[in-house]
Each structure stands twice: as C-alpha cells, then as structure tokens.
C-alpha cells in the first residue's frame, strides 16, 4: 500500500496494531506504519484457534526479509478464527493491512479494555 492511512472506524494500540470491534468479537491486524517498517512480509506464524490472547502480550510473529516482529494483542480474548490465506499470500499484510491482511478474529473477554485504545488521529499523532 503506497500511502499511509489509518481508517477512522478502527481503534489502535501503541505497538502498531489495529482492532475492528463488532459486538463481542474483534478482528486484529498490524497498521500501515508497522508493515512499512518491516518491509516486504515473507511469513506469518499464526496462533491456534482456541488459544487465549492477552492484551499487551505477543500472540504471533510476522517475518520480513530483514526482521521478525512480535504482533501485540490490543485486547484480550479467545481466538475464534485465523486468516489462513496469509500462508500463501503474506504480502497481503503489506498491500491491504486493514482488509485482506487481517490476522485473527477474537471473542473478547473484557470489551471495556477498548477504552485504553487510541483513535485514528491519536495514533497518527503518536507516530510523528
């Protein structure tokens, strides 16, 4: 994706992860800033469906040619779905980080944790 973008309908974690909340489930991924810093993604190592994620802890790793990065959970819960398409097409994380580059869907254990997250403009300001 050529230009930086931070959609308004998402919430953001300072460690460069985004959340799309839909009721008591949420979708996680990494932001444009994160994929730009990593460079071309070559491998995404997903967690297992059914495993627990904890806010602020790492739940997966994403690997580019030059670096490996932890992916931080913005909220806590149980993983209900994993984006297996990233196995064949890890570049989706670079090309469409908020769409086809989604990583996991989680049933939230404590939706109030979302109060700690940043909105798009707060996150974007933090990058400056």
């Amino acid at each position, binding site marked *: 994706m050529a230009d930086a973008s931070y959609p308004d309908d998402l919430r953001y974690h300072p460690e460069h992860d985004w959340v799309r909340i839909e009721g008591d489930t949420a979708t996680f991924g990494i932001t444009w800033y994160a994929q730009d810093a990593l*460079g*071309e993604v*070559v*491998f995404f190592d997903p967690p297992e469906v059914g495993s627990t994620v904890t806010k602020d802890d790492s739940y997966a790793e994403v*690997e*580019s*040619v030059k670096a490996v990065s932890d992916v931080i959970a913005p909220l806590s819960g149980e993983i209900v779905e994993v984006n297996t398409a990233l196995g064949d097409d*890890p570049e989706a994380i670079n090309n469409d980080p908020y769409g086809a580059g989604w990583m996991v869907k989680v049933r939230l254990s404590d939706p109030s944790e979302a109060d700690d997250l940043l909105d798009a403009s707060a996150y974007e300001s933090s990058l400056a």
Partner: protein
Amino acid sequence: MSAREISGEVPAAAGMQSPLQREQARTIFEKGARGRRAFSCPAPAVPAADPQALLPAELRRAAPPRLPEISEPELVRHYVRLSKRNFDLDSGFYPLGSCTMKHNPRLHERVAALPGHARLHPRQHPARAQGALELMWRLERALAEVSGLPHVSLQPSAGSHGELAGVLLTRAYHADRGERGRTKVLTPDTAHGTNPATVTMAGLEVVKVASNADGGVDLEDLRAKADDTVACLMLTNPNTLGIFDPHIEQITEIVKDAGATCYYDGANLNAIMGITRPGDMGFDIVHFNLHKSFTQPHGGGGPGSGPIAVSDRIEPYLMVPRIVRTAGDGNGGPATFALSEDHPKSIGRLRGFQGNYGTFVRAYAYICSLGAEGLRDASETAVLNANYLVARLRELGVAEHLPLAFGELCMHEFVLSGAPMKRDLKIRTLDLAKRLLDHGVHPPTVYFPLIVDEALLVEPTETETRETLDDFAQALAAILREAAEDPEIARQAPYTTPVRRLDEAGAAKRPVIRQPLAEAEPMNA
C-alpha cells in the same frame, strides 16, 4: 561498458554482458552423466563375505544417494568457474567493519599442510603428539600475554562459541558462590548480534544498557542497572562504533562492585594489541577471534576459532581438557605436555577433541612471524589507516553526505551515517554499497550498528596500503558525485557483477534450499 550501458539505458541483454554474467548458474547436480566417475575404488582384496549377511536389507538403503556422476576434469572446471563468481580478499579491498579482513599470509597454508600437523589424529596418545601440545601451550601463553588474563582455553570453535563459554563460566562462578539469583546479562545497545543470542542459549536474560551522546556506555544507566541480579556485563572496547570508551575503568569497577563479572568481546582486538589489554581494563573473560586479528582465513564463512582467556577467579570452571606443561628434568630433558581432565569444577566441554587445531597452527605462525613489535605495529597501523581514511573522506567532501556518526578520531574502524546522503542525494547506504561493487571493492558493513541510521561500518585493517585507501575514498566521492547527477544509477546497481540485485524476499517466502533431483532409482540400476 559505456556510460549509457552502466546507467541501464541500454539493457544488458543487448549482448553487452560479461561471460560471467551470461553464464546461467547450473549446480553440479545438473552436470555429468550416468557412469562417469572421478573416484577409483580400490578392490577389497579380502575374502568376500556375503554383503547381505554383513548388513541385512532392513538396515540398508534401497537406493544410493543421488550424488553427481562426473569425471575429475568436469569437477575441476565446475568449481574453478564457480570460484570466479566470488570476490575475495586476495583480489581486492574488503573493508568489512567488525570482521578484520586482513591479509592471510600464505606461509600459514604451507605449515598447516605439513603432515605432522595435518595428518595427526586427535586421539593420538599425547606422548606422540608433543609438537602439537607444545604449539597449543605456546599459543595459550601468547594469548594470555596479549590479553592480560593468565588462563586460556583454545577449545571454542568461533567467537560466538567463545561467548557461550564465557556466559556458562559466569553462571558456574556465581552458582558456586550460591548466587543463583544473578540471571541478567548487561549488553550495550551497540552490541553485535551474537551477544544477545548467546545469552539466551545460556539460560540468562539480556538487559540493554544505553549509549551516551559520545557513543560510549551511559554510566548513569549502567549504575542503575548493575545490581545483584546481574551476572555479567558483555562489552567490546573499542565498541562497534570504533570508539574506545574513556570510562572503561569505571565501567568495569561499577560492574565488579555489584558482584558481577566482566566479559570482553574480542572482535575488536585489532585496535589494541600491545597498546592496552582487556585484563588491565578490568575484564574477567576475553574471547579472541583467530580469524580476525590472527589471520586465520575467513573461508567464505569459517572455519574460525574463539579461544578464551580468564582471570584467576574464573579459572576453576574453565573447560576440559587443559594443556599441562611439566618442566624438563634439568638434565637436558625437554619439557613435556599432557592433556588434563582433572578439574572437578570445570563446566565440561563444548565440542569434540581439542578445538580447531589447524587454526592454532596458523595463528601461532603469525605470532612467531610478528613478535611483540609486529603485533603492536599491526594495531598501530590499523588505527592509523582508519583515521587516515576518515581524513581523506573529509578532504574529498564525502563527509558532508556521509558524516562520522560519533567523535572525531576513531580506533581501527569507524561508522558513517548515510542519513544526510539519503535526504540530499536520494540514495541509501544499500545503493552506495551496491554501486561500490562496480568499482571492484567489497562494500563496508551496512546497517550495523543498529543505533546509527543508514550505517556504514568501515574497517580498512593494517595490511592495506595508503594508495588503496586513497582509491577507496575516490571511489566513494565518485559515487556521490554521480548520485547528485542521477540517483537512479546507484539505485539500480550493480551492473558489472556476475548477477545483479537479487530477490531476497522471494527466497524467504518460498524457500528453495536444494536442487530438485530426478526420482531415485533402485540400487542395482
């Protein structure tokens, strides 16, 4: 090649390729034919026993491994041609920072090949390996003198292996004193990658110490972090910025007052031989890279050797076996040497046999050749060459785009930052490095250390002439001038190498790490 060809306007495919560029890479597995052979197997010449009785079918392979079938001339041509697709130190300047690419004296290959060294079995009885044991003992003494630490083990296979030994020794030392709460290793944020990896392998935890504005260790941060949970500080001095920390004595004192050990990463020893010694700076454990300061050839990525020297308080835990010298009988009988395993507190061994003896022969020959004066001259000239190169770059205006990241003087290596170049000339350190390849030199180390943006780590070493350094400075200046005119040239470089820029992401995404082979056929085919 014409300027237009170099700039890429005229594609290389229009016939203007070198033979090396034109030649498609084919592995040895894609050459040869059924029935060709280079090896002539001797006849067994013993009474034939039934092979199936000797080794039953269920233990046997059904088909032999699909190794190539080629004659000797084919084998020679393949590998010699392949060698020509390599740049090497004998052929050109190789200022790879942190690697000390100094000349490999050819005498060393001759002595290492002597059958008395090369065909000596590691399990030969020590009484019949006295030459080898004496050589090792003398090398140990020399390394002890250079480092200022009296007890040496030549066992580790490389620098990072020596680091592992150092951390395990530290753990053993603290455990023996009942201090098992010491689980942290402090390392500066300028440290080489092997340091944190080693610490994790040895079951401890890395804690980073900040660098100050001058590129040295931030003493306040160190004081705050050096407590009784710290096992060790791992440091190299001069550091990876080529800077000798003026507070080194305070640093080791702070750490030792906190009850921890001090480990010296000897990768930068080339700056200080005969000038200062890690033992005198307050370190407990030092590792040497025989393939850096002591001229063991780099071999394309090894073999190396990582001996360590330690202080009295660490000595009990040193690996076994150790070399023990017994003085002569006073009646003209020579001193004798033995291998000893009788050290109850030793951490044990970290590899088979005695270590990379072939590297000891070469390092020892080097030390014999140079002597005290020569080793000091090597370090002095290494520092002289690095500072002279910095001066030339300043004179030619290179420093404007590639400034020194820290300080004014350096030790044996220095770091430039490509950030101004990137901003003003629109080319990155990577592009500069690739364009240098077209000038017939190996680029310096790029993107390390991590604390410098667009880093270029340059280590000329002492074996280069002043003329070579002048030529290198000129090459950098030429590339910058070219970039000011047209940045695209460097961005598409190199043009003249056997292959041009390679798709590294593709190699990582869908790794192909062996040659696909035709289906296996049964043994008798």
